[in-house]
C-alpha cells in the first residue's frame, strides 16, 4: 500500500493527492501535524526525511521525499498510458523538468507568503515573497497565453496535461491566501479552470471546484 506523509493544508502534499487521484491509486494518508505541532521537525519524522519537509511517499521499500520527485515516480511507475511523464519524448521531458523547477520556485514565493499570512511564519519578508510570485505569475501567464494561441491547453505541448501542470497548480490556486491576487493573470485563471476539469480532480481547503464545461 502506498503511504503518504500528509498534511491537509499543504499545497505540496496536495500535488501528490491530486496525482494519486488522477491515477486512481489507493493510498494511506499518514497525517503529520505541521501546525501547530511542528511534527515535521520531530526526531521521529527527521529519521524519515532529514530535511524535515512534507510530503514523503513510501511505496513497498521505497521512501521518497520532494513533491516533484514523487510526481515523477508515480507517473513513471503507475501511468500505463505514459502521458503524465512521457519519457520517450526527450524535448517534452526537458520542458517538464523546466516547469517542475518553476513549480518549486512558486513554493518559495507564493507558499511562503501564505505561510506568513496564515500560519504565522513571520521570518519571511512578505513583500519580497509577493513580488517574486508576481514576477513568476507574469512569466507563466505569458507562456499560457501563447500556448492558447497555438491551441495548446497545458503548460507543455500535447493534448494531455503533464506532471508540470500538477506541480504548478496548488500554490497558484492558493496564492490569494498569501495576499497575491490573480486578477492580472487571465490566462492562468483559464488554465486553472481547465485543470479543475481534469477527470479525477480533487479539492483541498481554499481550492474551489469548477463547474461542468
Amino acid at each position, binding site marked *: 500500500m502506498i503511504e503518504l506523509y500528509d498534511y491537509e493544508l499543504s499545497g505540496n502534499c496536495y500535488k501528490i493527492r491530486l496525482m494519486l487521484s488522477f491515477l486512481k491509486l489507493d493510498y494511506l494518508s499518514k497525517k503529520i501535524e505541521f501546525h501547530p505541532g511542528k511534527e515535521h521537525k520531530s526526531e521521529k519524522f527527521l529519521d524519515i526525511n532529514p530535511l524535515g519537509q512534507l510530503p514523503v511517499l513510501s511505496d513497498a521499500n521505497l521512501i521518497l521525499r520532494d513533491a516533484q520527485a514523487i510526481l515523477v515516480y508515480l507517473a513513471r511507475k503507475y501511468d500505463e498510458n505514459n502521458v503524465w511523464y512521457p519519457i520517450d519524448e526527450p524535448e517534452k521531458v526537458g520542458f517538464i523538468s523546466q516547469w517542475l523547477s518553476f513549480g518549486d520556485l512558486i513554493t518559495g514565493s507564493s507558499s511562503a507568503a501564505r505561510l506568513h499570512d496564515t500560519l504565522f511564519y513571520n521570518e519571511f519578508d512578505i513583500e519580497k515573497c509577493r513580488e517574486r510570485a508576481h514576477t513568476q505569475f507574469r512569466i507563466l501567464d505569458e507562456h499560457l497565453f501563447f500556448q492558447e494561441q497555438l491551441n495548446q491547453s497545458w503548460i507543455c505541448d500535447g493534448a494531455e496535461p503533464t506532471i508540470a501542470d500538477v506541480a504548478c497548480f496548488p500554490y497558484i490556486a492558493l496564492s490569494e491566501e498569501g495576499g497575491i491576487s490573480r486578477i492580472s493573470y487571465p490566462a492562468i485563471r483559464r488554465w486553472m479552470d481547465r485543470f479543475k476539469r481534469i477527470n479525477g480532480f480533487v479539492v483541498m481547503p481554499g481550492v474551489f471546484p*469548477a463547474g461542468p464545461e
Partner: protein
Amino acid sequence: MVSDLKKIWYPIASSADVPRRHVYHAQLLGREYAVWRADDGNVNVWENRCLHRGVRLSIGINEGSELRCQYHGWRYANRTAGCTYIPAHPADAPARTICNNTYPVKEALGMVWSGEEAFDKPTDFKNFEKYTVLRPIPINGNISIIKKMVSAKYQMLGHVTQDMKNGVIKVILKNEEVILFFIQPQESNLSVLRGVVNKDYVDSDRVVFLKLHNRILQRLRDDIEVLSERENSDPMLVQIARVSAELSEMPQKSDAGRQAVLKVRVAEKKNTASGICSIKLVSLDGQLPTFQPGAHIDLHLQNGLIRQYSLVNGPGETNFYNIGVKLDQLSAGGSEYLHKHLREGDVLACSVPRNNFPLRRDSVKTIFVAGGIGLTPLLSMARALDVMGLNYEFHYFVQNKDHIAFNSILKALKKKPMFYEGLSPKNTEKKLNKILLNPQNSMNLYVCGPGPMLEVTRQVAANLNWPDSSVHFEYFKNAKVIDDSSSFEIELARSALSLKVASGQSILDVLRANSIDLPSSCEQGACGTCKVPVVEGLIDHQDVYLNESEKKKGNVMMTCVSRALSKRLILDI
C-alpha cells in the same frame, strides 16, 4: 476626475477572456466585476459580490445560464442578475428584491467594454472591420504616465502617434496598419494597456505579430514600472451601490389592485400544438424582471380581461417571456382573444412574474406529471433541473400526438420525457399508480393539468402514502362555486385596524377599499398570490391552492375567496 471617467466606455477584457463556462475577474476605477458569458452568447458584467455574504462571484461557477456562488450556492440569472434559488430555503421562491447590481456592457473590436455610468453610445472606430486584439498588458502605473510612455515608445520606433478622445492613442505603423491603444484604469496605480490592430492576422503570422508587440509592450511596462515605483497613491474609493430604490423601499399605499407594470411586445406567435399557441413577449423598455421556474404573469388584454399564464422559459432565458395558451372552447374571452385577435407586434401590459409554485432542488428525485396545457410551469421546472443534472422524471399526458406542445423544447431535454397519448380516465389512473409507486424520502411530485386529472393524481399519491408536503400542484382555475354569503369581522394585527366584511364582499375587496394593497393575481383562489397568515379564528377555505394539511392547520388563507367560520379573524398583516 474619477467621476468623469465613470462615464467613459473602457475595454475591461478581451472577448477571448470570456470563453464558455468561465468567470473573468475584472476591475475598473477600483470597482471589481465578475464578467461571464452565458451559453446564449450574452456577456454579463456584475458587481463582484454575492448579495448573501459578500463573497466574490468571480470565484463562482458559470453554469451556462446562471452564475452560482461558490459559498452557499445562491444562483443568479443571466442578464437580470436576479436570484433564482437559495439552497438553504429550498421550498421558497427568492424575493424579487434579491438582485445583484449589473453594469453596462458592449462587445466590439474583440473586446468587452463597460463603464459604471457609460450610458451613451460607445465611440465607433472607423476602418476596424477586421482586427486582431493584442495581448493585454497589466502595468503598475497610472493612465497618464502610461499614455505618455506609449506614445514616446512607438515614436521612438519610427511610427506616428495621435492622441484621440478619452485617452485613446492611435498608432499608425510604418506599414500603414493602425493600432488603437486603450488604457483601462483598474486601480489608482494599476492599469491595463489594451491594443487592437486593424488587420485580421491568422495562423503563424498572428503569433509572430502578437509576440512582437507583446515584447515591445512588456519592455515598455518594465520602463513605466521603474518610474511609477516612486508614486504611492491611495486606492480608489468604491461604494457598493444599494439595490434600486424600487426594490428596496416599501411600496406606496394604494388601492389600485392588480397592476400591469411591464409593457411588452408580442415578438413571436406561433402554433405549437393543436389549439395551443406559443407567445413570446419582449420588453419595450429595458430588462424584464427575473423569473423562477414555476412563475406566472398576469396578462392584461386589450379587451379588459386579465389572465394568468405560466412561463415555459428555461434558466437564463431572460430576454423574453414565453407562454403557452390553449384555446378554451368555453372561453370567456381570454384565450379566444389571444388566439384570434393578437398579432405579432401588438403591445400588451403584464405584471412582474410571481412564483407561488416554487421548485425544490434538493429532492433525490422529482416527478413531474403534466396534463395538456398544464405542461407549461412544469416544463420550465424540468429545464432548470435538466441543466443542473438533477434526477427527475417527466410524464406528459395528452389527448393525442397533435396536442404535444413545445415539442422542440421537450426534445432538447437530456432526460427524455415520457408521453402518454389518449388514455381513458381509468387507464390514466392505472398509469399514475405505476408512476407514483414507492415514494421515498426527499422525493417531490409536481402536478399541473385539468381539474379532474389533478384530483385523481392527488388521490393516487395519497393512497400510495405520498406525504402532503411532497405533493405540489397548481390548478388552472377554481371550479368551485364560491359561497360569499357570510359576514364577519377582520382584525389586522400589524396595521391595528378592524374592518367588517359584508356578504358579497371578499376580504381582498375590503382591504383594497381601505388602501391596503395586497398583491393578487387570479382572484379566484387558484394561484396563491393573495395568501396571508392568520393569527386567530376559524377559516372557511374555498380555494384550490392550499393542500389539505395546510387547510387543516388553519394559519394561512387566500383572501380573494376564503372567508371566516368564526365571527372574527385576526390576520397577520
